[in-house]
């Protein structure tokens, strides 16, 4: 029974353990190394060519060729998030309790047990010692706050604390929160958004985006028209700028005209267009087909991807693809031959090289004229999660800086009379959450200063008086 009861807490204990954090850090690092060394997003046949059948099937089984999107990599990331949340659940209440405890009563005995503490005996009445201490601490550490003394009876000692940066212990939670925000933003982007591409020839308008995954097409709520695409070059021949002049068309009306260049995308209604590539597309081609049996020549005009009936027959021809440089031999079109009741055949036809292989079915094909247009390749993205990612990044930067370079510093002071000697005992103790060395130095400086001031409380005034005197005589 007790074993069952402890099971959830054991799981929470494991999930929130630092051991798991370290294991996950190293595992994610190792997995990422593998991901950069093995080629990613290549198919099983390609893997077989590279690594042989046995290694290829192992790589495929472990999804090492698509590692960053594999289930097990996602599980590692999910475990890291769970680890973060579990750690927060376990530690945050303790931290908050610690922060809230700043007004806990204390006495000189408690202070003397601190790692950093010191006692000074002064031959001053308690009120005078108190004012000396208050001004010294105020100078070095900031305002003091009086605390109700813990002692019930007898003389009530003076107890006070001075602290700065109480919030700094919370900053590490802000760093962890920022990691979660970034990951939630990334998930929101991948579930609610899309990534795709559109190739838009000059002068044409389209609202269709080819999605990167799933090879499907999505329609935008507005259309984009490409007015012009330009490439400029430096004297060295290196490309200087890729620029597309585009217009947004909404309900048949032009609502926006702008240029898109690399590093300066266009965002409209949450959808962003990036300059990604460019190329040449075919609008239509004039071809001449020759029937080798009769020697009859027929001229045809084929618009891109529109089937045209061969005159005198019921068969159709269509240009399905256009390549600017097919297998390094130049421009080519892919012709598709459609015959009723039969599967259509397809054949690549070289445009610049009229040779005997340029044939489809039994026709010899010659391309006589092509009408081409330059197109701009735009990457299209909708990412509703991006603001979360930016917010996470901002928080992460601030919070890492504050975690490393701010510190919760607290100074306790207790002043009480010593009944035996009749002296006044001043007890100091301090603690810093970070950069303890600097704090210790500051504490030591305060102690030395206090010792001097408490031993001859008028020293500083005398010096000051001396100085003014000197000034007066000059």
């Amino acid at each position, binding site marked *: 029974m007790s074993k069952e009861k402890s099971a959830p807490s054991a799981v929470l204990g494991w999930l929130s353990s630092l051991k798991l954090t370290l294991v996950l*850090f190293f595992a994610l690092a190792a997995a990422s190394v593998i991901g950069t060394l093995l080629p990613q997003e290549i198919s099983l046949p390609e893997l077989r060519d590279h690594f042989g059948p046995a290694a290829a099937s192992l790589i495929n089984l472990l999804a090492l060729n698509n590692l960053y999107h594999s289930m097990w990599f996602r599980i590692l990331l999910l475990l890291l998030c769970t680890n973060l949340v579990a750690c927060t659940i376990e530690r945050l209440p303790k931290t908050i309790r610690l922060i809230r405890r700043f007004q806990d009563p204390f006495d000189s005995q408690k202070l003397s047990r601190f790692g950093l503490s010191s006692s000074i005996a002064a031959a001053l009445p308690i009120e005078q010692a108190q004012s000396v201490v208050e001004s010294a601490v105020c100078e070095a550490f900031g305002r003091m706050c009086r605390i109700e003394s813990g002692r019930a009876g007898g003389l009530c000692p003076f107890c006070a604390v001075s602290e700065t940066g109480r919030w700094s212990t919370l900053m590490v939670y802000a760093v962890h929160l920022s990691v979660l925000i970034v990951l939630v933003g990334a998930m929101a982007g991948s579930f609610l958004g899309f*990534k795709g591409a559109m190739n838009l020839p000059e002068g044409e308008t389209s609202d269709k985006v080819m999605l990167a995954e799933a090879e499907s097409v999505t329609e935008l709520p507005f259309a984009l028209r490409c007015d012009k695409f330009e490439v400029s070059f430096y004297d060295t021949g290196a490309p200087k700028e890729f620029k597309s002049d585009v217009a947004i068309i909404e309900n048949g009306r032009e609502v926006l005209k702008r240029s898109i260049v690399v590093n300066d995308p266009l965002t409209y209604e949450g959808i962003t267009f*990036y300059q990604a590539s460019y190329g040449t597309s075919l609008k239509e081609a004039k071809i001449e087909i020759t029937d080798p049996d009769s020697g009859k020549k027929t001229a045809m005009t084929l618009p891109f991807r529109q089937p045209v009936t061969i005159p005198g027959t019921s068969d159709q021809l269509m240009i399905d693809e256009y390549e600017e440089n097919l297998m390094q031999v130049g421009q080519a079109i892919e012709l598709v031959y459609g015959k009723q009741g039969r599967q259509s055949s397809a054949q690549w036809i070289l445009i610049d090289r009229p040779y005997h292989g340029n044939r489809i079915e039994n026709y010899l094909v010659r391309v006589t004229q092509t009408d081409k247009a330059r197109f701009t390749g735009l990457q299209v993205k909708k990412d509703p999660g991006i603001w979360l990612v*930016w917010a996470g990044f901002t928080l992460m*930067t601030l919070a890492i800086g504050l975690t490393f370079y701010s510190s919760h510093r607290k100074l306790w002071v207790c002043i009480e009379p010593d009944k035996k000697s009749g002296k006044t005992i001043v007890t100091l103790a301090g603690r810093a959450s970070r950069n303890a*060395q600097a704090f210790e130095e500051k504490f030591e400086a305060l102690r030395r200063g206090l010792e001097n001031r408490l031993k001859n409380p008028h020293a500083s005034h005398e010096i000051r008086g001396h100085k003014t005197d000197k000034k007066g005589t000059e």
Partner: protein
Amino acid sequence: MTSSFLLSLTTFAYLLCTVLYLAGTIFRFKPLLSAGTIAGAATLLMQTAGIGLRWVESYRMGYGHAPLSNMYESLVFASWAIMIIYLVFEWRVRQRALGVLPALFSFLAMAYASFSKDIDSKIQPLVPALKSNWLIAHVMTCFLGYASFAVSFGISLLYLIRKRFPEDPNQESGFIVFLPGVSQLEWFNYQLVLFGFLWLSVGIITGSVWANSAWGTYWSWDPKETWSLITWFIYAALLHARNLKGWKGERVAWLSVIGFGCVLFTYFGVNFLLSGLHSYAR
């Protein structure tokens, strides 16, 4: 006076600086260490002038961009960043006996940039993908991180050496006694890792924001991105282990050495061995 003349001079001046620090440490002669500091600071000024002049020259050529755009320029900046971080660190902790390795790293970066046949030192125009204000923010933040890790790597090495040869009061000779104590070295190492981690994080973030406007995606598992993340994981592990698990000493020093190995691979390995979107950094 041209930038390439100033930067060539910088290479030899860093060698001089390294020799001064080394001699000062080996002979335990403090004036030599002070000379090392002066040489380092003077070289840094000269290098700053060289980088500034190169910037001006790129405008005269009509390209007009910050000298942070290719392997040569990034190596020069890396060397500059290592020296400035080391000098500020030296001034803060008032400890001069640690200068040998940072000065050596600065010299090696400059020497590699100047003498390697693979590295073109000509000022080249920016390709469209690099034309962005994020270039300066991204490269500077990344290299501040890398340089800080380089100095921390040097200190980790000294720490590991110091650990192998414990203090022997009878043995008066040897430079080891001249080094700060192990606990101090450990603390220095930690401080530099903190500084480096902050800048590496900002460097990854600025890179990510830039990638989003240039490539349309803030994270694409490009080898350079991935390796910077691997580096980030290693140093994150170091910080967690040291702060919460109380790992101190050798394990942290070794993690810092491994972390710097990742930095080197992110910088050189990815450029020369793996292909990806960052290919212009060759």
